[in-house]
């Protein structure tokens, strides 16, 4: 009897955690997008007011960014400083591939970033500002969508985890 009860508790516990993990993916994405937006804000300020060249700018901004984004910026800047002949957009893409293999961001979020990378650095300040603002605008749209998904799915997955666990227990015993 006691074994049965312990077993049931474990099953419910595990399935709740699985539900939580799924739900967390949605929360992570919204968090990441909002962090990305503030990082782009910093990029814009650095470009427009300080004209810092990209490799140094990335290092500077990475120090003030959360770890996942800092990773992307640092990887890119390292590739650039090695001067192996990669253009900025190539280095940026590599950085995204290396640092966002398992990230919570969706393909469409990453595509936005890659697109921004194709334009960063190759025009004057006014133009750079426009590109960054456009990317931020699009990220905000993705953010709204992410929030919407989060509101819809977090509760769903959480309760599905719990209820699923209970269902298994009832069926088994």
């Amino acid at each position, binding site marked *: 009897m006691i074994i049965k009860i312990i077993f049931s508790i474990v099953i419910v516990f595990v399935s709740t955690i699985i539900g939580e993990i799924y739900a967390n993916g949605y929360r992570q994405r919204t968090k990441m997008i909002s962090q990305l937006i503030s990082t782009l804000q910093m990029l814009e300020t650095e*470009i427009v007011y300080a*004209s*810092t*060249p*990209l*490799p140094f*700018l990335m290092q500077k901004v990475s120090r003030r960014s959360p770890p996942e984004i800092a990773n992307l910026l640092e990887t890119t800047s390292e590739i*650039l400083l090695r*001067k192996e*002949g990669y*253009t*900025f957009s190539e280095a940026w893409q590599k950085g995204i591939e290396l640092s966002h293999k398992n990230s919570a961001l969706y393909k469409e979020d990453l595509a936005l970033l890659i697109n921004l990378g194709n334009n960063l*650095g*190759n*025009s*004057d*300040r006014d*133009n*750079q500002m426009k590109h960054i603002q456009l990317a931020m605008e699009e990220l905000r749209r993705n953010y709204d969508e992410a929030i919407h998904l989060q509101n819809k799915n977090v509760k769903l997955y959480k309760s599905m985890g719990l209820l699923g666990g209970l269902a298994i227990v009832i069926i088994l015993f």
Partner: protein
Amino acid sequence: MNPMESNFIKKASNMDTHLQLEQYLCPELRKIVGKIPETFKTTMEEIRLRMNQPLMVYGNNQDYFVSPTGELVKDRERGFPVGRINIENTLQFISNYSIYAVEEELKRGYITITGGHRVGIVGRVVTDDKGIKTMRDFSGLNIRVSREKKGVANSVMKYLINERGDFYNTLIVSPPQCGKTTLLRDIIRHISNGMPALGLRGLKIGVVDERSEIGGSFQGVPQNDLGVRTDLLDGCPKAAGMMMLIRAMSPEVIATDEVGKQEDNMAIEEALMAGIRLITTVHGNSVEDLYHKKIICNLVKDKIFQRIIVLSNKGDVGTIEGIYDGNTMKNLIMSPIRNRVVRSNDH
């Protein structure tokens, strides 16, 4: 006198110079330029990229097309055609991946890179009511190799210092591409470091480097050795810069490139009044040429310059045709001083 004495120039690390330069080319061109024979690379003065035209290099007073395998050819059909992508990528490396960070430089039409090399840029210029705003659609690059030739002034210095170890006001006269700035730079270094053998103690020297050619500054740091007592004002208009130096840095000597404007005159007078020595350069082929230039002519007639050095590229770049005494207009050297360039690996 023996024109050969102490006139062997050690070229500063040639290997490093072009390795450093090749880093700035896009990978495709890097490979091709890497295959150019070493012997040519040590004398290479320019690499030229023009859109849809063959890659060209200039050296030994003539230009060559470069084939995809790095051969120097005279037949343009065999040259490697430079495309838009080559120019754009090369410019990325030159601008440190950030065109927006070199906006000021684009307005002037050139960028100075590490090592003091200079990259000239052409393209479509965008203007607004304030003048040139920026440049885009880049169509050509000219990478000029800068070789710091330490020692070119060794044989000249003794004519520029009097028996009390005082420096004479000096004017360097030279046609373009004859090593005018190179000579000026080396004289600056000698004045700044001092030459105990000639009784010259190191003097405080202020340099106004309007076109960033003397110091070859990269992000404000001179890439060429200008000596220990040198203060460099980079990118500053000459007249304003001279005044700034007089007021702020108490120099004993002021050096600048290519005077000739009306306002320069004022600044020069100001400097002379403050007891400051001058060294400057001017375009021209001979002393007679000076009399056709208004500002310089007056200065020469007033016997401001006690020494006038005339350069030419007869024989070699940087041949010193004559050193004239500004008071008597007599040539102080018997025969032209040739700048023998000796390659050395012992540094």
